[in-house]
């Protein structure tokens, strides 16, 4: 991936209650570049600064120090906010808080309607967005009767109907059960691989980072680890010290590696683990 990064975060600091006598530092000098088409996962605990950082990507928050550039536009420039938010759409944690209409397709149409998109274009976008998230057959349903995973997919469709280049998912799977989580993750993967949408997923579930191109781990306002999933996951000691949820197979690989030097420690999935064990027993 070459050329200008889609999003550039340059030495960003952020203080909550900056004007008060008790400001709370949430970001302490973040430098990050996100390339077009990338699938980036940002992991960290509550309080690590990951959500604060996410809100900088579409100018919901502005840095106290430093700059954030979206497609070359500085988020501090108020005249560019609409264009920035057109480029980077955001999906939040609680599905119910993002749904405004009483019929699924009307909710998805809400965004483009407000942008003044002509009616037949709205129709096209709504159909496409619902198709992409697998909810087209639910277009006339009442959102409050859907499961949480379905609602979250409708929320994603609503953002996609705006045709952003990038979507930021802020812990969008936090309140979903395992089935709902899988539904949302499959949709997100599809958007990235098939539609070329840049995805930034904020989460505290490490197993959601397995398919990312790059993983960034945050702690107390800093980036403490960065790299492809395999590299980051194999830093088991660091991850353990940060009390992050390492997938069971990665923990097992690490322990086996300690006993058997040539057993790989960067195992991410059940399939890989089974392969490696079978290879180790053959011969």
């Amino acid at each position: 991936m070459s050329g200008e990064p889609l999003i550039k975060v340059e030495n960003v600091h952020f203080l909550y209650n900056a004007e008060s006598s008790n400001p709370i530092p949430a970001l302490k000098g973040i430098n990050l570049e996100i390339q077009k088409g990338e699938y980036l996962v940002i992991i960290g605990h509550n309080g690590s600064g990951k959500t604060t950082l996410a809100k900088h990507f579409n100018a919901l928050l502005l840095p106290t120090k430093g700059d954030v550039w979206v497609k070359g536009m500085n988020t501090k420039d108020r005249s560019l906010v609409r264009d920035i938010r057109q480029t980077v759409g955001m999906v939040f944690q609680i599905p119910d808080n993002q749904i405004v209409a009483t019929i699924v397709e009307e909710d998805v149409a809400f965004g483009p309607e407000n942008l003044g998109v002509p009616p037949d274009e709205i129709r096209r976008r709504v159909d496409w967005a619902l198709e992409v998230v697998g909810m087209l057959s639910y277009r006339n349903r009442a959102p409050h009767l859907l499961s949480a995973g379905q609602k979250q997919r409708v929320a994603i469709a609503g953002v996609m109907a705006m045709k952003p280049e990038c979507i930021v998912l802020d812990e969008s799977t936090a309140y979903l059960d395992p089935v709902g989580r899988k539904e949302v993750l499959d949709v997100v993967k599809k958007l990235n691989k098939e539609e070329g949408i840049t995805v930034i997923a904020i989460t505290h579930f490490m197993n959601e980072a397995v398919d990312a191109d790059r993983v960034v781990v945050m702690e107390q306002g800093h980036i403490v680890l960065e790299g492809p999933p395999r590299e980051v996951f194999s830093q088991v000691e660091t991850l353990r010290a940060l009390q992050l949820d390492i997938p069971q197979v990665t923990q097992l690989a690490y322990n086996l590696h300690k006993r058997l030097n040539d057993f790989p420690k960067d195992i991410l999935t059940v399939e890989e683990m089974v392969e490696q064990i079978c290879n180790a027993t053959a011969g």
Partner: protein
Amino acid sequence: MWHIYLRDTPLEVVALRGVDMEVYKGEAVGIIGHTGAGKSTLVQHLNGLLRPHKGKVIIDGVDLSQEGVDIRAIRQKVGLVSQYPERQLFKDYVADDIAFGPQQFGLPPEEVRERVKWAMEMVGLDFERFKDRYTFSLSGGEMRRAAIAGVLALRPKILILDESTSGLDPRGRSDLLRRIKELHEKEGLTIIFVSPNMEDMAELVDRIYILADGQVVMSGTPREIFSQPEELYRLGLGIPQVTEVMHALRARGKNVRVDVLTVVEAEAEVCKLLNC
């Protein structure tokens, strides 16, 4: 036991059909199922919030459907922590919110204070640091713990936690699970733990009930349940990753135990295979 919502209306939903469940004193029992399976409906019967349309609910020898049942006594004995418990908080100050329950039961102030202190300690909220904090200034995890303390302050014998780890980060989750385990093992509370997370269940409970479409479809110890992965996949539920690994190895002809639930157990089994 059966429960039907909006009975005899066009929107009627049979939420529970013929559910049988037993929980023995001092046990930790898990209830797993998808959204809509009937888990919350089921546990809301256990402290009399809901009444069954057919069948009985008997708590500590008391049949809840009988005339003149002391429902307050039941609600003291059975503490129910609902999903997103922080929504229950309403008092300005943390200690006041936790004290509300015991105060409503007419306990003397000294006793109330003792209860609040104990409950806060149980959830890891330092009494001196948190008692005078504004409830709504707490972090999400802290609010959740304060809400749980409010239920604990009534010193229930049975504690029901309905998806209490939902929305917590890994550190918050493992901390909460550890505390629940302590309440179970050290304080002898009977625990009913509702969760969609299989790996939590493996660590915490003696027995599991799996609900689907308002019925109990499987029940048994964690080892028994996880030894039937096909059934669980069919129900759309997973098993701990390490258990999956063992089953896959067995399918490839390797001689390994499949009733493995934790990383430590898996390591021991794999080492037998790899001679390490």
